[in-house]
């Protein structure tokens, strides 16, 4: 087992009113942090981009060869009603090479299969994703949410954006990642964001709790195949949010728990709640430097490690929220933000749609 260590740049843009805008904005933002990547991986998560299929699970899949595709499509057809499928349109550019076959499927679980499985719909989808990724050699599902999609590749992020024609998509939320891996598997699936269902994570850092977190989450049926921090964080969010029904704010206090010295001076009932969360979910604590931006169906979340060992700033302008590793990446797309601030270590930034947004 190897451990995939990397530095990085991250960026995110979200419209609180649900207004959809072009992916060009996020490309411009992440491009401003070119220096923080080394061309070995870049990617985007985009929300609200498939309104015409918003009730379908959108699977984005890399295939290494035709036989993997055949085998995978056979599996999909036996578990899902495939509404439509197509190649994901790309633009051939010299900066991006050696691409795998990249396909997209809009699907709903077959009602009979779903009923037989005795699982809820989202758990059924998650298990199918794991089944494909762990058993079909050469097939890799890298996006599986509704009305959202992940686009990633080996290359600088701005080139990856142009490659996927991201400017042609319109969404209400985008996140982006530029990678600086210190070892290089050079595999497209290893680029970020990492996503499961609607949850997507971009991450900058190197967590020291990695193996404690990995061995813990694997106990709950998640298979960590990529050996990256981002993968493990994504699974922990999925587990705590979808399965344990913790709120995102509670998840942030589990990941970047306040120090005991802070908890002890808090008033009741916060103190008891925090002690409960630290005890009950101790193996979900993340230590070491990280800044993450999490995309989900209703908004965007950002979190720093509790010592704030990675830079991260947040900006606001009207209904728009900007989050990035560096302020420059916000200024380049919004030169006059109403407010720019640097969240404290462990301070949860959770932004959801304004009331009344459909």
């Amino acid at each position, binding site marked *: *087992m190897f*451990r995939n*260590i990397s*530095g990085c740049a991250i960026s995110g843009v979200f419209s609180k009113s649900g207004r959809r805008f072009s992916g060009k904005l996020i490309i411009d933002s992440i491009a401003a942090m070119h220096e923080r990547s080394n061309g070995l991986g870049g990617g985007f998560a985009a929300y609200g981009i498939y309104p015409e299929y918003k009730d379908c699970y959108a699977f984005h899949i890399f295939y290494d060869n035709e036989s993997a595709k055949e085998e995978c499509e056979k599996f999909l057809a036996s578990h899902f009603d495939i509404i439509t499928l197509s190649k994901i349109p790309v633009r051939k550019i010299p900066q991006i090479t050696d691409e795998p076959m990249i396909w997209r499927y809009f699907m709903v679980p077959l009602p009979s299969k779903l009923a037989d499985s005795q699982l809820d719909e989202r758990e059924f989808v998650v298990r199918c994703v794991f089944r494909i990724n762990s058993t079909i050699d050469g097939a890799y599902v890298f996006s599986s949410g509704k009305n959202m999609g992940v686009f990633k590749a080996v290359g600088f992020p701005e080139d990856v954006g142009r490659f996927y024609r991201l400017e042609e998509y319109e969404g209400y939320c985008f996140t982006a990642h530029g990678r600086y891996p*210190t070892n290089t598997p050079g595999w497209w699936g290893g680029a970020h964001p990492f996503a499961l269902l609607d949850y997507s994570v971009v991450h900058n*850092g*190197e*967590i*020291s*709790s*990695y*193996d*404690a*977190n990995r*061995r*813990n989450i*694997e*106990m*709950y*049926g998640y298979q960590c195949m990529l050996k990256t921090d981002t993968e493990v964080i994504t699974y922990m969010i999925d587990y705590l949010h979808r399965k*344990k*029904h*913790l709120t995102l704010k*509670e998840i942030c206090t589990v990941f970047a*728990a306040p*120090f*005991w*010295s802070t908890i002890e001076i808090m008033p009741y*009932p916060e103190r*008891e*709640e925090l002690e*409960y*969360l*630290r*005890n*009950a*979910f*101790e*193996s979900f*604590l*993340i*230590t*070491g*430097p990280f800044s993450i931006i999490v995309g989900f169906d209703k908004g965007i979340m950002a979190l720093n490690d*509790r*010592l704030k*060992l990675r830079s991260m700033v947040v900006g606001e302008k009207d209904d728009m929220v900007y989050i990035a590793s560096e302020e420059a990446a916000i200024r380049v797309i919004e030169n006059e933000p109403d407010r720019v601030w640097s969240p404290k270590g462990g301070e949860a930034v959770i932004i959801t749609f304004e009331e009344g947004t459909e």
Partner: protein
Amino acid sequence: MAVNYFYPDYEIIRDYNRCINCRVCERQCANEAHRYLDDADKMVCDDARCVNCQRCVSVCPTRALKITETSNTFRKNANWSEKTIKEIYRQAESGGVLLSSMGNPENYPVYFDKILINASQVTSPSIDPLREPMETRVFLGAKPDRIQRGKDGRLVSNMPPHITLSMPVMFSAMSYGSVSYNTHESLARAAAELGIMYNTGEGGLHENLYKYGKNTIVQVASGRFGVHKTYLNSCAAVEIKIGQGAKPGIGGHLPGTKIVGDVSKTRMVPEGSDAISPAPHHDIYSIEDLKQLVYSIKEATAYTKPVIVKIAAVHNVSAIASGIARSGTDIIAIDGFRGGTGAAPTRIRDHVGIPIELALASVDKRLRDEGIRNKVSLIAGGSIRSSADVVKAIALGADCVYIGSAALIALGCHLCRSCHTGKCNWGIATQREDLAKRLNPDTGYKRLVNMLTAWQHEIKEMMGGMGINSIESLKGNRLMLRGVGLNEKELEILGIKHAAD
């Protein structure tokens, strides 16, 4: 018969130029190795009585004494060691089982010494514990299965009973009887000051020490000595002792000579009668029986205290632990084959059981594979010698460790391994009043506090080096460990990679 004469293993060397005939060595040696000759106005000694406990050396005001290994030797034989030959002579004479004390001293691999710890360089910063918070608080007990919320949406505390420790170290079970009252008091007061636990062992709890209940684990062993309702409710947790690393598969034996006064009262055993705990619990012949005892104790304590089950590390320890984890037990303590004892048959101590490092790694993995690791906490014991061993044990998967020998060493024990004689010159493993008073609990507890305070500093330094600022992120974090000089199978069982791999 001449064959029973052994040249002593150790020689007492006295420098007569330094000796002032103060006779302190004579007074301090319960083994009566030193003697004063009036006629000659001279101290003499009988090497054969010396157990090399270093007491006389330590108290000699002129440094006139030292103990050396004898150079007398049998004819060399790689197969028949002198020790083996002498043991046969002894048994040929006595017809008895050989007895020993403290942990297995034989030359088996010490896996902790073949494991190295990681540190951060460049890609992630190390953390300085002198400048940043560094947390070592630990909870032991089962985690809740699911979260519950009140009508207001707030979390409802459904946490099963647990114990809270300021650091992942506790004093392991040493019974009042096998060790002196002053030893128990030192341990209890140190545990209270440090915010950790000490463990009564199977000898009951002396009334005077009830006030340290918040920092006490009371033990229920196969002899049920000193077990009653007040005892079970004067503690933070109850431990069922199934086995002990030093003597897996057998019970305990406290000789009648040690059952005197308060020991007799506390154990609820008549004075002078041997306290023999049976090999098994005679109400536990199977796992379902264990479950009944666990729940009997929970009933007796109104479900307010976590129950610990302590087992010796034996060959199929992971399957046993898996069974225990499903028995309602909150915490499993695993005791490796190097664990100490006040008395054990030598052959058992030296040949039964397996190393804690391998047992711990295997149990942690098994419980994770079965998805039940969060139903129990794991305590590892059986020769944790330093803060580095603590860090390695936690990274292998322990929640906490037990220390016994290390604590006794802090109190003055020199590992002479003669506890079973009851003549401990350091006042630890004895009930002789003149000897026991040599251990002053006021200094004893302070020495224990000092040792663990130092260990805590060292643990924090090592954690900080790894970029970890809370102990829970170290638990089971095996990527922080690397093996040196271990074969593939050993690495596989430990779940670690080789150095530089």
